[in-house]
C-alpha cells in the first residue's frame, strides 16, 4: 500500500510554505475587497503576494519551544534578582531614573506594537506576511510584559514607577512616544510596517536595546539586561521582517518607490526625534558608561543604517534628506535634551541632576567639539546655583512642536546658540515646529497633525486637571492640579535627585547591606 513508499524529505522552505501560506485560499463567498478592506487605500500596488519571501521560518511548534526556553531563563533571573534585593547592587540610584523612563515611555509602545501588528496581521492580503506580523504581535506583548515584570520589584522600593499606563495617556513628555506610535497605527497597514518594522526596528531599536542594555548590565541591573537582550533576540526577527517587507513592496511596482521614500524620510526623522530621549539616557543617566550616544549612533545608525541604504539604492531608495541634520545633531542632542529635562524636572515622574566633574570630563572627552564650548558653562552655572540653594526649575510651560511634540529646545542647524523655530499657517491657525523636517511632515498630512493632543495646549484649555477641579477657587494652583492629574506625587517622584527619597533610601539600604548591625 502507498504508505510503504519512502517519503521525500521536505526542505525547510517547502515545508514552511505548507505550514503557512498553503493554508490560505481565495475567498469566493465574500469579495476580496471586503475581506481585506485596508489593502488598497494607501496607493501601494501589490501584484503578486506569492513573491513574498518569508523572512524567517518558525512554525508554531519551534516558536513555542524556543520562546519557552527564553521565558524560563528570563523569569528565573527576575526571581533570583528580586529575592536577593538585586536593586541594591546597581551602581547608583540615579541609574534607576533611566529605567523609569523605560517603563513609562517604551513599555506602552510595546503594547501598541502588539495591537498594531495584530491589525496588519489581519489586514494584509498576503498569507506569508500575515503570519510574520502575527508572530510579531505576540512577541511585542512579550516585551511589554517582561518589562513590566522585570521592573515590578523596583516599583516596590522606588518612586515614579507606579502609574505607567495612566501617565502614558497624560504626562507632557510622554506625548512624544505616544504621538509617534499613534501616528504609525493610524496610518495604513503598509505605512505602519514601514514605520515600525523598518525605520524603527531596523535602523533605530538597535540603539535602545543593544548599547543601552549593555550599559544596564555594566551598571549591575540584571533585570533590565535580561529583558533587554531577551527582547532583542525577537527584534532580530522583526528587523528581518521590516527589511523583507520594504524589499517586497519596492519589487512589486515601480510606482511604490516615491510613496515608500516619503515614508522612510518621515519615519527616519520621527524616529530620530523620539530617540533623543535615549541619547540623554545613555550620556547622562548611566553612572558607568559603555559608549557615548555619539559612538553608538555612528555604529548603529551611520554604519549599519548606511549599509542598509546602500543596499536599497538598487531600488532607487535614497538616504533621507534629514540625514545631514542628523549628522550635525549627534554632537548636541543628548546635552540639549538633558538640559530641557533638568529645567522641567518639577513635572516629571523621574529625577534629574547635574553631572559630577568627573562625568563632565568624560563628556568633554567624548564630545570634544561641543561639550566644553556650549554645555559645560551652563551646567556649571546650574550646579553653582544649586549649591547656593537655587536649584533651577522652569515653571513656564514650553511651546511644543506640532509634529514630534518635543519642547522647542533644539538649535538651528549650524548654530548651536540659537533655538530653531519654524511655523506654518494652515486654515487660519498657526502651527509651530522644531525643525524643517517636522514642518515638512506636517505639510504632507496637515489634516492628521492638526488633530495632535498637545499637552501644553490642553493644560491651558483646562483639560488636564483632576475631575471636579474648580480653577476659579481661591488659591487654585494650576501646576499642582496638573501634577495631580498626572498622578505624579510631588516631592517624591519629581525634581532634583540629590536628597530625594530614592537617593536617601538607596544610601540607607545599601549602608545596611554593607554592615551587620
Amino acid at each position, binding site marked *: *500500500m502507498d*504508505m*510503504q513508499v519512502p*517519503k521525500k524529505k521536505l526542505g525547510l522552505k517547502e515545508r514552511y510554505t*505548507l*505550514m503557512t501560506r*498553503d*493554508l*490560505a*485560499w481565495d*475567498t*469566493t*463567498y*465574500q469579495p476580496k475587497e471586503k*475581506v481585506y*478592506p485596508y489593502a488598497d487605500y494607501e496607493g501601494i500596488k501589490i501584484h503578486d503576494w506569492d513573491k513574498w519571501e518569508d523572512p524567517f521560518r518558525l*512554525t*508554531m511548534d519551534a516558536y*513555542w519551544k524556543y520562546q*519557552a*526556553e527564553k521565558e524560563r531563563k528570563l*523569569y528565573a533571573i527576575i526571581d533570583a534578582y528580586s529575592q*536577593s*534585593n*538585586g536593586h*541594591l*547592587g546597581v551602581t547608583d540610584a540615579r541609574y534607576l531614573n533611566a529605567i523609569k523612563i523605560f517603563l513609562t515611555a517604551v513599555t*506602552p509602545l510595546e503594547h501598541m506594537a*502588539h*495591537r498594531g501588528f*495584530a491589525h496588519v*496581521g489581519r*489586514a494584509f492580503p498576503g498569507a506569508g506576511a500575515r503570519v510574520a506580523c*502575527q508572530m510579531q*504581535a*505576540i512577541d511585542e*506583548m*512579550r516585551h511589554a*510584559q*517582561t518589562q513590566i*515584570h522585570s521592573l*515590578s520589584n523596583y*516599583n516596590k522600593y*522606588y518612586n515614579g514607577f*507606579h502609574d*505607567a*499606563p*495612566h501617565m502614558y495617556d*497624560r504626562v507632557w513628555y510622554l506625548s512624544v512616544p*505616544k*504621538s509617534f506610535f*499613534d*501616528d504609525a*497605527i*493610524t496610518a495604513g497597514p503598509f505605512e505602519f510596517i514601514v514605520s515600525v518594522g523598518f525605520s524603527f526596528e531596523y535602523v533605530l531599536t538597535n540603539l535602545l536595546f543593544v548599547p543601552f542594555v549593555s550599559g544596564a548590565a555594566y551598571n549591575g541591573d540584571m533585570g533590565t539586561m535580561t529583558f533587554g537582550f531577551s527582547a532583542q533576540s525577537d527584534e532580530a526577527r522583526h528587523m528581518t521582517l521590516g527589511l523583507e517587507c520594504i524589499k517586497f513592496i519596492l519589487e512589486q511596482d515601480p510606482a511604490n518607490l516615491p510613496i515608500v521614500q516619503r515614508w522612510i524620510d518621515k519615519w527616519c526623522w520621527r524616529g530620530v526625534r523620539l530617540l533623543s530621549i535615549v541619547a540623554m539616557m545613555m550620556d547622562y543617566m548611566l553612572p558607568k558608561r559603555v559608549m557615548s550616544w555619539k559612538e553608538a549612533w555612528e555604529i548603529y545608525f551611520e554604519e549599519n543604517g548606511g549599509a542598509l541604504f546602500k543596499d536599497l539604492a538598487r531600488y532607487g531608495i535614497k538616504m533621507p534628506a534629514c540625514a545631514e541634520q542628523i549628522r550635525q545633531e549627534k554632537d548636541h542632542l543628548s546635552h540639549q535634551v538633558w538640559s530641557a529635562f533638568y529645567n522641567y524636572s518639577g513635572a516629571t515622574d523621574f529625577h534629574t541632576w547635574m553631572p559630577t566633574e568627573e562625568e563632565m570630563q568624560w563628556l568633554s572627552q567624548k564630545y570634544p567639539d561641543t561639550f566644553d564650548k556650549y554645555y559645560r558653562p551652563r551646567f556649571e552655572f546650574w550646579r553653582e546655583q544649586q549649591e547656593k540653594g537655587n536649584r533651577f526649575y522652569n515653571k513656564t510651560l514650553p511651546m511644543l512642536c506640532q509634529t514630534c511634540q518635543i519642547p522647542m529646545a533644539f538649535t538651528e542647524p549650524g548654530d548651536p546658540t540659537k533655538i530653531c523655530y519654524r511655523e506654518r499657517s494652515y486654515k487660519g491657525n498657526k502651527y509651530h515646529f522644531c525643525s524643517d523636517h517636522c514642518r515638512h511632515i506636517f505639510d504632507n498630512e496637515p489634516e492628521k497633525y492638526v*488633530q*495632535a*493632543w498637545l499637552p501644553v495646549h490642553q493644560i491651558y484649555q483646562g483639560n488636564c486637571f483632576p475631575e471636579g477641579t474648580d480653577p476659579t477657587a481661591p488659591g487654585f494652583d494650576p501646576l499642582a492640579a496638573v501634577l495631580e492629574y498626572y498622578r505624579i506625587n510631588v516631592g517624591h517622584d519629581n525634581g532634583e535627585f540629590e536628597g530625594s527619597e530614592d537617593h536617601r533610601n538607596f544610601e540607607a*539600604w545599601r549602608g545596611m*547591606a554593607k554592615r551587620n548591625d
Partner: protein
Amino acid sequence: MQIDLRTVSIKPQRQTYGHIARRFGDKPASRYQEGTFDLQPTANFHYRPTWDPDREIFDASRTRLTMKDWYAFKDPRQYYYGAWTLARARQQDTAESNFDFVESRNLGALLTEDVRRLALDMLLPLRHVAWGANMNNSSICAYGYGTAITQPCMFHAMDNLAIAQYLTRIGLLLGDTSSLATAKEHWLYAADWQGLRRYVEDCLVVQDWFELFVAQNLVLDGLVYPLFYKTLVEDELSLRGGTAVAMLTQFMTEWYAETAKWVDAQIKTACAESPDNAALVRGWVSAWQARALEAVMPLAQSALGERAGAAVDDLATQFAARVAKCGVPA
C-alpha cells in the same frame, strides 16, 4: 567588594503598581494582573485611524456590547505571554512524542485504508477552518477593547495557526503533499464542505468584534471540535482501529477543553453585565448556531453515515446546555 544582601530586610514602599492597587488593593499582585490590567491606552489619542476615521484608535463602540469595565473579561487561565508559552511548549512536547511514536512504529501503515481515507478526508480541510479562526482572532485582538480580552485572542489566533500546522503534519504523516492538495480542492469545491467554507468566509467580514467572538470561538469551535475530534476521531475512528489518529489530534482535544472554559467565562461575563448584552449574545448565538449546524450536517453524513442525524442532534443539545450554563437567555 562583597555585599551580603541577604542580611538586609527593607520595607517596600508599595506592593504593586498604582493601577493594579486601585483594582485589587495594595498587595502583592500576580504576573497576570500586572501584565494585563489597564495596559491599553484609553484617553487623549492623537489622531483618528485613517482606516476608520469615525472612531478612536481604541474605541469601545466597535462592538454593540457595552461594559462598565472592559477588564471584567478575566481569563480564568491567567495567561500572560510567559504562562501561555510555557503551557503550549509543554503540550507541544507531548504532541511531538505522539507524532514520533506514530511515525517510528509506522502506526499509520497499520490503519485500514478506509480509516486512513476518512481521517484525511475529514481532518485535512479543517486546516482551512483553523486558518479562518486564526484571522478572526487576530481581528478581535486588533479591534477589541481592553487588554484582558484582546490579549488571549491573540494567543488564540496563534493556537489556531498551530492547529492548522498540526493538521498539515497529520496530512504529511498519513498521506503526502498531494493529500493536502486534494483536501484543499475539497474545501474549495466539494459540495459537502461549502456550507462550512461559506460560514468561515462570512465570519471574515463581521465588523462587530464581540459578535465575531461568538460566531467563531463559541459557536463554530463549539460544534466543530466535539464533532470532528470527539465523535469522529475519538469514538468512530478508535472503534475502527484508528487510535493512532487520536494520538495525533490529542493537542486539539486538550486545547479545546482548556479554551472552552475561557470562552465560556467571557460569554458569562458579557451576559451577566446587563439584559441588553444578554439579548445581543442570544441573538448572535441563535443566528450563527443555525447556520453552523446546517454547515456541519453534510460532513457528519459523510463521516458517520446514517448515525449522523443522531450525532448532530446530540451535538446541538449539548451545545444548548453549554450556552444556557453561560447565562445566555433561552
